[in-house]
């Protein structure tokens, strides 16, 4: 068993050796860290990055249209192809296997020649920073289970999210904030759940407020009371709590609860400031496309992700939807690209210019990709109005920043862009690699639950060493 151990420092032991008491303690992050499950822990291996920003493209971007075009599909546009799709995955709207070509060019970019669509001009401009994985695969072709898999490794069971595992493995650098924040998460809370890990590691959802008065984090403020009243109440509560602790010779949980209330009280002050993007320069905002009609929401989310990373949050996720193009992909895909291209590329550039990219790992991925052949739900639409069905068999993911080789294309798919033929990276491998980059051995990072030592990668996963810088 390799449970990580927390420093056995009792908060009370510290208290006995300081004259400051609780008042002094309230602002002393180091001491708080001593009893927190989020206390900093040393990595197991040499870390190549300290933190992760996961840009989750919910819905399944079409890798064929964006990164991995196939001549045979272009050539046979509108005609049936002889693709090896297993019987149990065929259904009415896709069974004709009509090749659906790409109408917008995908070209080599930069020094490295990474192939990227004209639909992603900002991403194309940073091609040499990206490590493009072109043969990623997963196990389920439905959104719910597939999204669960990219977050937790499991398809059906509720397991800890990757952000929770990393929080558990490394702790956090900022004790006024949770270690794992997820911006604009989807409705399935299991995707950022700590599951059987201690709940301190669960993702805290953040929703950028539409209105100034709305809190970005649940229960962060109470519009019905003023600060002075809240302070009075807080002091009264903590006085009661302290008296209770003093009555005992020391109860770690009661101490932890006092600490937690302190953190929450501080978060009320720290978090709104972090979420407030108004202090950023115009140039920075422009970089992310903030103010742009399509890009504003994701731009602000990505900028917030940078601010949170900068503040020491270990794992930040930004979810961007709009990729589920079952029909009229030629109409829908440009919109999804427009909404995400500049924000994501702007994030990379901003991290780079602040010197943060070298120890921040950015991962861009959907839960799966889309079929090279078309899908027609109506059964009557012309090929130009067709969409694409889900495809977990292969899809593209990119990474950038700490620990990965920029300007590298890794992996190839077959002539249809259906199955990987080389450089195959399963989601478990991706997870193992992310942990490895952070200095965590995916086989050693375990938690004992119901008699078994669980891992993020279950019993699978190989670090993709070829992509490590």
């Amino acid at each position: 068993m390799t449970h990580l151990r927390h420093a056995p420092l009792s908060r009370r032991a510290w208290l006995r050796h300081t004259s400051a008491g609780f008042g002094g303690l309230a602002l002393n992050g180091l001491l708080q860290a001593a009893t927190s499950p989020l206390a900093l822990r040393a990595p197991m291996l040499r870390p190549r990055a300290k933190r992760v920003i996961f840009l989750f493209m919910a819905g399944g971007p079409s890798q064929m249209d964006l990164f991995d075009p196939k001549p045979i599909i272009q050539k046979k546009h509108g005609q049936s192809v002889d693709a090896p799709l297993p019987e149990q995955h065929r259904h009415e709207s896709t069974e004709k296997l009509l090749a659906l070509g790409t109408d917008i060019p995908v070209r080599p970019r930069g020094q490295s020649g990474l192939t990227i669509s004209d639909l992603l001009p900002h991403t194309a401009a940073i091609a040499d920073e990206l490590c493009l994985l072109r043969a990623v695969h997963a196990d389920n072709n439905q959104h719910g289970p597939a999204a669960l898999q990219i977050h937790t490794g499991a398809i059906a069971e509720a397991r800890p999210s990757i952000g929770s595992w990393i929080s558990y493995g490394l702790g956090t650098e900022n004790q006024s904030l949770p270690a794992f924040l997820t911006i604009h998460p989807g409705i399935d809370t299991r995707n950022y759940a700590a599951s059987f890990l201690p709940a301190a590691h669960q993702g805290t959802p953040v929703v950028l407020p539409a209105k100034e008065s709305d809190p970005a984090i649940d229960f962060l403020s109470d519009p019905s009371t003023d600060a002075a009243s809240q302070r009075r109440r807080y002091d009264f509560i903590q006085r009661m709590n302290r008296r209770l602790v003093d009555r005992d010779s020391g109860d770690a949980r009661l101490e932890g609860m006092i600490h937690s209330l302190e953190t929450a009280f501080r978060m009320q002050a720290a978090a709104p400031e972090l979420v407030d993007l108004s202090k950023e320069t115009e140039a920075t905002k422009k970089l992310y496309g903030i103010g742009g009609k399509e890009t504003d929401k994701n731009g602000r989310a990505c900028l917030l992700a940078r601010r949170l990373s900068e503040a020491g949050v270990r794992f930040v996720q930004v979810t961007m939807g709009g990729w589920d193009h079952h029909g009229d992909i030629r109409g829908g895909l440009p919109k999804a690209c427009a909404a995400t291209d500049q924000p994501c590329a702007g994030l990379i550039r901003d991290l780079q210019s602040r010197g943060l990219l070298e120890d921040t790992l950015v991962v861009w991925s959907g839960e799966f990709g889309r079929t090279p052949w078309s899908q027609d739900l109506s059964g009557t639409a012309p090929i130009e109005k067709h969409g694409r069905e889900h495809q977990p068999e292969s899809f593209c993911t990119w990474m950038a920043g700490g620990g990965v080789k920029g300007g590298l294309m890794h992996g190839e798919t077959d002539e249809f862009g259906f199955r990987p033929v080389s450089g195959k990276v399963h989601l478990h491998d991706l997870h193992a690699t992310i942990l490895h980059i952070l200095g965590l051995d995916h086989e050693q990072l375990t938690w004992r639950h119901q008699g078994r030592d669980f891992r993020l990668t279950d019993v699978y996963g190989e670090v993709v060493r070829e992509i490590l810088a």
Partner: protein
Amino acid sequence: MPSFLPHPLPCHRTLRLLLLGKVFCIAAAVHGSAADAFFRDQVEPILRQRCYECHSHAGKIKGGLVLDSRSGWEKGGDSGPAVIPGAAEKSPLIEAVRYANPDMEMPPKAKLPAAEIVILEQWVARGAPDPREAAAVAAKPGIDIEAGRQHWAYQPVRDSAPPAVRDAAWPLNDVDAFLLAKLEAEGIAPVAEADPHTWLRRVTFDLTGLPPTEEEIAAFLADRSARAHERVVDRLLASRAYAERWARHWLDLVGYAEQIGTEGKIFAEHAWRYRDYLVESYHADKPYDRFVREQVAGDLLPASSPEQRREQLIATGFIVLGDVDINAIDKLKMEHDFIDGQVNKVGAVFLGMTLGCVRCHDHKFDAIGQQDYYALAGMFRSTKTTFKTRHGIWSNVHRVDLPELEADRVLGAKHEQTLAAWRKERAKLESESKAPAGKAGADNKKRLDELNAKIKDLGLRIAHGEYFHPGKPQALAVEDVEQPADMRLTIRGNPYALGDPIPRGLVRVAMWDAQPEIPAGQSGRRQLADWIADTRNPLTARVAVNRVWQKLFGEGLVRSVDYFGTRGDTPTHPELLDHLAHRFMGEGWSQKKLIRNLALSRAYRLSSGEAPADSGEPAGSSIHPSLSAALPESAGGSSSDPENKLLWRMNRQRLDAESIRDAMLVASGRLAAPAGGPGLPLEFPENVSGLPLTEKSNHPQFAIKKERESQAYERTVYLPVVRTGTQPGTARLRDVFDFPQPAQITGKRNETTVPTQSLYLLNADLIRQRAADLAGELLKGGDSDEVRVGRLWLRVLNRPETDSERAEALAFLAEARATGDDLAAWTELARALFATNEFLLRF
């Protein structure tokens, strides 16, 4: 990279060679030095370079396959021999390197160069000459059931008499004798009893999930008789609140939610019947063996009345109400996943067995083989649990028609009348809309638009009323399929890679008899139920008793409450566990009698503090002298048993989400009378989308836009549980305080401490509302502030306030009144108390 079947399922794998011992013919191999040289020069380097990393004794042995010896590929891995000499086309190794089978592509990361594939093909075609010496392969033995039975949990339950103790005055009952004997042996003195307020709060929360009221506190303090404690416990056990509390504990094991699966928001519109079944069962103290039988095989049990038939059908909701993926294209895999959930649930809930991993391989630690798994799985394969809906690729959970009762007929008739009236109204409006226009163009258009809007609205209400018809009672439940059959073992859980058929049956390691006869045409669930509910089953009573113990004492006698296997915790008090299990069965499997016995023990009265009795607790200090003083050789347990395994004191517990919300309702006097019935307010058409159904319509879904007014004041157990998104309405509090994800089997909930909880305590509107209700209650009548402070403490902390607390409270009120009115000031004070750790914990 794993086996020949990569990533079939997220499950542990062993290296067991399924086909170990199977004999197969080896084609006459080409002998001689030329063949050997071919192997050494051309084939072996490829194997070494490309395969050994994952398939050799020096590297990993993935999929059970080694290629570093001839015997390695002869035996092969999980899917049999890797090479058939002379038959390249039949050799899995060749198929794998050709990437001909997407589930078996080797090496996994990149296909071999064509030239290397050719060499391997030639090698096999030439009879696979392989001169290598067989490496010493230690064949991994199969599971040994007899040896496995030696594990304590599979041994028969053996009663033993309560042991003698030195301090004969301490034990109040048999439980205490067992506990004290151990403490005395270890030289640890138990702490003193908790004060009466603490005990009353503890027992009231533990048994009912609610706090004691002011009146109940007064009554207990006034009762000077020796039976005061008994009277409290009996009152609590008789209450409906007890049943509501313990039904919720059981729901934690079931994965209960009013939503089916997690794709979309598909309503489990009949799930509540199972929840109400649990409440009724606990209220009636249904014998646990019967309770088990009904849930596993209620549909197969005889019934003497329509009511009983109904109850038993509803009980089988246990089998289908977990988390399931119903939006799957691959229905075979979906079915296997379903069955897996069911086997796993039956194993963990009733037997403390982990069976999930046995889907793919024999258990690594317990003597449970794939054979055992598929013997059980065949029973669920023979049970109707899902059906394909008319909506796209959706399936849904099986439902059965319940025998109609008079109440249904009345409800149904009334509903029909309403529907008929709506239909009539619609017909009338429709004919009006077709009537020739009496007015000029613009006016007529307006008239028609209004009419059509009304028609559309009526149409929606009619479609909604037809879809959710209260007169046709159904339950999410199971029944046997028409042709029950055995299931075939699968290789690594892959439903397309089948092994031998496995006769349906029971888990061998916990059997005392031969496998039961399963009558033709039956699934075998009845036999399964009988086996679980048998007094000879070594696990059932132990697991059940331990679950109850954990709820009362904070930790189980076996701490891993859902897992009694070899890697679980061993019992801290094995004789006590067996004694209780034996007594439980002897007393007719009565859970109330069991709880009563535990709650009336001395151990249950102990303080949760570490301090000995005379350390002076401020609030109502201990009334019973500590016996530790009388035992000079004994020491406190805090140093020798810091984890309190020997129970020298009571464990503290954080109130669960339900208790926090419900306690605020009791304290503020707003708790609604016991409810029940549907949790989802589907009677409001605005909460349902996708109706009326059309040819191509997707599955209707729910979104709770409107709640019943009463729901804010009902006990939390009655509020709807959803699987995705935040819990609706005031049930939101569940998300914050460790409500288990309804996908999991959660015998013991987490008790975490996270800033989100603290933010909730500081800022949540729900707490403010309950505090305002409570303040309003206190302000009724002309009590003085001092009296009101006393009542506030009794209602929230269930104890009298101390002098200094009173002074602080009065000072707080004075300050708060400077900026607000009386109600606002008292609300602030009540809000503060609801956020204290003393309120949140039961001591």
